């Protein structure tokens, strides 16, 4: 029975990951390219130069292709909530149901009005109103990402709510605490800035291809300058928000931070691993080394985690087995209190069914005392609280290395463009084109860190994935997994094919 649940959970997780990863191929380009188009069109309106209009229309067509292929791919995740994650879906429905529905309606009306003006209105509305519509599409598209990212932030740091044991739901107590929790804010700012970065890489990369092919060189250079400036600003902002996000992870999800850095034994002046090869046989609590090879920067992890280079950063062992000297309660101890909470909830349920209010009140008091560790009560072993360390570690480091590389590319593009020799820098143009792919790798790696790093939790500390899921047959989830794999691959191939065709035609179309 337990194996069957695990099998279903793993397939449900795989299916959700597959859908989310495919969805996130389309979304960041939409978010970032919408702003780049607004910049291009603003320059056209300001200068009146028809070349900028032609350039704007070309990138708008690329934007339209990406938007059309990607639209509604996220709805599949909502289907999965109702089928595979019904317990989770029920429990958080009060918090996210209405805002997500409002956001969906808002996005629909925005798209039906301003998208139409943006694509159909070139000769039918004034230049000013057309530009306004383009900006509204950019702002609206990015705003429509707010609630889904707030929801994700809440799952990582469940603030502003209370559990109602009669309805088996989390209910919102404070809207501001949910919408403006530091995790939600940094989730939104880091995600959108990384999307701006990706779109900038895309525009720079496609423009570099034009330069390599000696086609549309004037347009390519103009696009490159605007995208490189936007990309550079986005990179700096992304680094800043990434640092804040990591600080929040250290404060609220210390296990994730420990996995991101492969830190098993907590330390003062903890080093940041600049590069390393994880020892895959290493388990929590054993004596094996965590790394086969590692390049360490002393004190940097402590600085990142606590803004103090000499401070203590807990490791996986501390968080699993506890560290009394550092006042850290481990998962082992939290499992004991968590099971008290689960048992009390059971007694409350039975007492209420029998109408025994005295027992129900007593059970609820015990539950309230221990509910902060509720999720640990569902774990069968303390090491279950450890996320997959190697996946989290490598994804984090790939994201950081690529995130450091991209601003250098933007700087080089700007340097050689202003020097007037960008078209002769073949190596740089090849690197720019390759960076499109690397940009997507960084995006996906970032989400792997965020989502794999918080395992086993669907809601941090309160609901593990094995309780969040529905008791359905694993074979059902397997079937739909492969249907999605086929559907999304076909969509992706269609996008690439149509986009490549349009890029081959270029802005002359």
């Amino acid at each position: 029975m337990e194996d069957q649940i695990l099998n279903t959970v793993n397939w449900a997780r795989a299916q959700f990951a597959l859908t989310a990863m495919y969805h996130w191929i389309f979304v960041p380009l939409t978010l970032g390219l919408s702003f780049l188009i607004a910049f291009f069109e603003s320059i056209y309106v300001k200068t009146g130069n028809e070349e900028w209009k032609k350039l704007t229309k070309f990138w708008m067509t690329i934007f339209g292709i990406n938007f059309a292929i990607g639209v509604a791919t996220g709805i599949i995740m909502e289907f999965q909530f109702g089928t595979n994650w019904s317990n989770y879906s029920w429990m958080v429905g009060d918090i996210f149901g209405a805002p997500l529905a409002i956001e969906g309606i808002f996005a629909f009306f925005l798209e039906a009005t301003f998208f139409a003006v943006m694509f159909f209105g070139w000769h039918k509305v004034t230049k000013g109103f057309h530009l306004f519509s383009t900006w509204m599409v950019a702002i609206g598209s990015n705003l429509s990402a707010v609630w889904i990212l707030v929801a994700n932030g809440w799952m990582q740091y469940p603030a502003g709510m209370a559990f109602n044991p009669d309805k088996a739901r989390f209910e919102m107590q404070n809207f501001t605490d949910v919408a403006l929790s530091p995790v939600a804010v940094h989730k939104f700012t880091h995600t959108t800035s990384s999307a701006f970065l990706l779109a900038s890489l895309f525009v720079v990369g496609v423009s570099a291809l034009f330069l390599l092919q000696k086609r549309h060189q004037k347009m390519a250079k103009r696009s490159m300058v605007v995208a490189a400036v936007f990309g550079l600003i986005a990179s700096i902002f992304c680094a800043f928000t990434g640092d804040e996000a990591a600080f929040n992870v250290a404060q609220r999800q210390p296990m994730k931070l420990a996995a991101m850095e492969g830190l098993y034994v907590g330390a003062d002046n903890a080093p940041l691993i600049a590069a390393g090869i994880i020892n895959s046989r290493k388990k929590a609590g054993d004596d094996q080394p965590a790394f086969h090879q590692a390049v360490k920067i002393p004190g940097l992890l402590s600085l990142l985690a606590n803004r103090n280079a000499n401070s203590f950063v807990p490791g996986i062992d501390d968080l699993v087995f506890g560290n009394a000297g550092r006042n850290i309660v481990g998962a082992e101890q939290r499992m004991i209190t968590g099971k008290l909470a689960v048992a009390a909830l059971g007694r409350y349920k039975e007492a209420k069914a029998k109408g025994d209010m005295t027992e129900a009140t007593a059970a609820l008091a015990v539950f309230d005392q221990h509910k902060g560790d509720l999720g640990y009560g569902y774990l069968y072993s303390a090491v279950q609280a450890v996320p997959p360390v190697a996946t989290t570690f490598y994804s984090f480091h790939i994201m950081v290395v690529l995130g450091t590389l991209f601003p250098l590319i933007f700087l080089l593009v700007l340097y050689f463009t202003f020097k007037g020799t960008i078209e002769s820098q073949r190596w740089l143009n090849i690197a720019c084109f390759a960076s499109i792919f690397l940009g997507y790798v960084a995006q996906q790696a970032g989400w792997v860190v965020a989502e794999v790093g918080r395992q086993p939790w669907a809601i941090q500390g309160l609901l593990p994935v094995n309780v969040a899921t529905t008791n359905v047959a694993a074979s059902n989830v397997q079937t739909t997994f492969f249907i999605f794999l086929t559907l999304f691959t076909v969509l992706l191939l269609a996008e690439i094919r149509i986009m490549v065709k349009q890029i081959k035609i270029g802005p002359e179309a």
Partner: protein
Amino acid sequence: MTSKAKQLYLFYQEGFRSMLVGRTLWKIIILKLFIMFAVLKIFFFPNYLKENFTNDGDRARHVLESLTIMPPSH
């Protein structure tokens, strides 16, 4: 039809008519939405709690039941 409504209708009609790449994209969008809502949602993605329980009270009891099952000890 009032003149404003007619203008709006013509705006969309001419816009759709003059589309080039857009026609292919609309075909993809319609096909995709059909597969998602008319096939996947209906045949593969029933809402478990809505299908199996008639009211919110029963749904809450079912979820609470799941939340009060202790995991096996290892």
